[in-house]
C-alpha cells in the first residue's frame, strides 16, 4: 500500500455512508464480532426493535452466505490463495435504509446457475417466495457444513426487496460475485 492515501479512502467511505467494512478471511470469530458491533450500533442509534431484528436477520444470512462460499474456496485453493479473501460493507442507503454488500470469488462454472437462481428469486411475489422457502425447507438436506440453500430466498423474503448482483471478470477460472441487499 505504498501509494495509499488513507484520507482519500476515509472520505470515500464517509461519502458512501459506510458503517463497517472488512476485506480478508471470513471466520466464525470475525462474524461474531461483527454481529456484536452492529447490534451495539443499532442500539446506540435507538433503532426500533422490529427493524433492528429485520436488519440483524438479513445481515446474518448475507455474511453466512459469504462464509460458506469461503469455506468451499479454502478447501479448493488453500487458505492463503487470493480466492479465499472476501469483502463486505455495511452502511446506509437511500431513504434511511441500510445496505449490506458482499463480494467474493466464485468459480466461473457457478455463474450461470447463480444468475438463474437470483433472476428467478427476483421475479417472485412475497407469496411465491414463501412457497419456495417452505418447499426448499421441507425437501432439501443440509450440507455437511450446515448450508441450507435457503439464504438467498430468505434475504429476498425478509427484505421485501430485489437482490442486486453482479459478476466481475477476474480470470478464465474465476469471477468476482457481488450481492447487495437493502433493508428498509
Amino acid at each position: 500500500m505504498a501509494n495509499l492515501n488513507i484520507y482519500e479512502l476515509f472520505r470515500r467511505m464517509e461519502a458512501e455512508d459506510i458503517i463497517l467494512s472488512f476485506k480478508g478471511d471470513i471466520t466464525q470469530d470475525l462474524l461474531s464480532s461483527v454481529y456484536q458491533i452492529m447490534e451495539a450500533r443499532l442500539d446506540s442509534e435507538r433503532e426500533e426493535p422490529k427493524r433492528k431484528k429485520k436488519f440483524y436477520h438479513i445481515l446474518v444470512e448475507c455474511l453466512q452466505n459469504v462464509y460458506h462460499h469461503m469455506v468451499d474456496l479454502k478447501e479448493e485453493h488453500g487458505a492463503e490463495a487470493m480466492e479465499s479473501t472476501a469483502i463486505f460493507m455495511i452502511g446506509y442507503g437511500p431513504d434511511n435504509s441500510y445496505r449490506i454488500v458482499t463480494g467474493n470469488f466464485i468459480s466461473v462454472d457457478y455463474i450461470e446457475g447463480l444468475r438463474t437462481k437470483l433472476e428467478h428469486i427476483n421475479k417472485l411475489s412475497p407469496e411465491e417466495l414463501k412457497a419456495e422457502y417452505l418447499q426448499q425447507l421441507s425437501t432439501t438436506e443440509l450440507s455437511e457444513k450446515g448450508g441450507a440453500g435457503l439464504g438467498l430466498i430468505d434475504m429476498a423474503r425478509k427484505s421485501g426487496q430485489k437482490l442486486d448482483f453482479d459478476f466481475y471478470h477476474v480470470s478464465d477460472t474465476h469471477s468476482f460475485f457481488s450481492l447487495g441487499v437493502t433493508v428498509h
Partner: protein
Amino acid sequence: MDPLIIEESIKTPSITFNPGTGTLEIKGKSIPENSLEFYKPVFEWLDAYSKSPAPNTEVHIRLDYFNTSSSKCLLDIFRRLEPANSGGSSSVKVHWFYESDDEDMMEAGDDYQALVKLPFTLIKV
C-alpha cells in the same frame, strides 16, 4: 435417560430437555454458521427420547432469531418428535413463543405448523 442441558452462547440457544417431565425448551438465538455441529447432540438425544417418551411432551420454542441453517434443524427436531404423537400412549405439543411486534417469528411458527404433524400453539409474549 439424562436431561440434555446446553448453555446459551452468542450464536446458539440454551437447550433444556427434561426427559422425566417431557419439557423440552429451546431459548435464545440460533445463528451458528454450522448448525449441524450444534444440533447433532440434540438430534441424538431426541432419537433416544422418542423410543420411550414421557406421556406428555411439551416443546417450548422461545427464539429471538434463527438463521436458515437452523431453520432446517428445527424442522428435523419436530420431525423426530412426530412418532411420539401418532396415536399411541404419548402426545407432543409445541408452544411457539413470539414477541408481539415480531410478525416474522409468528409467521415462522405458522410455517412449521403447516409442515409438521404436531399441534402448535402460537403464543404472543
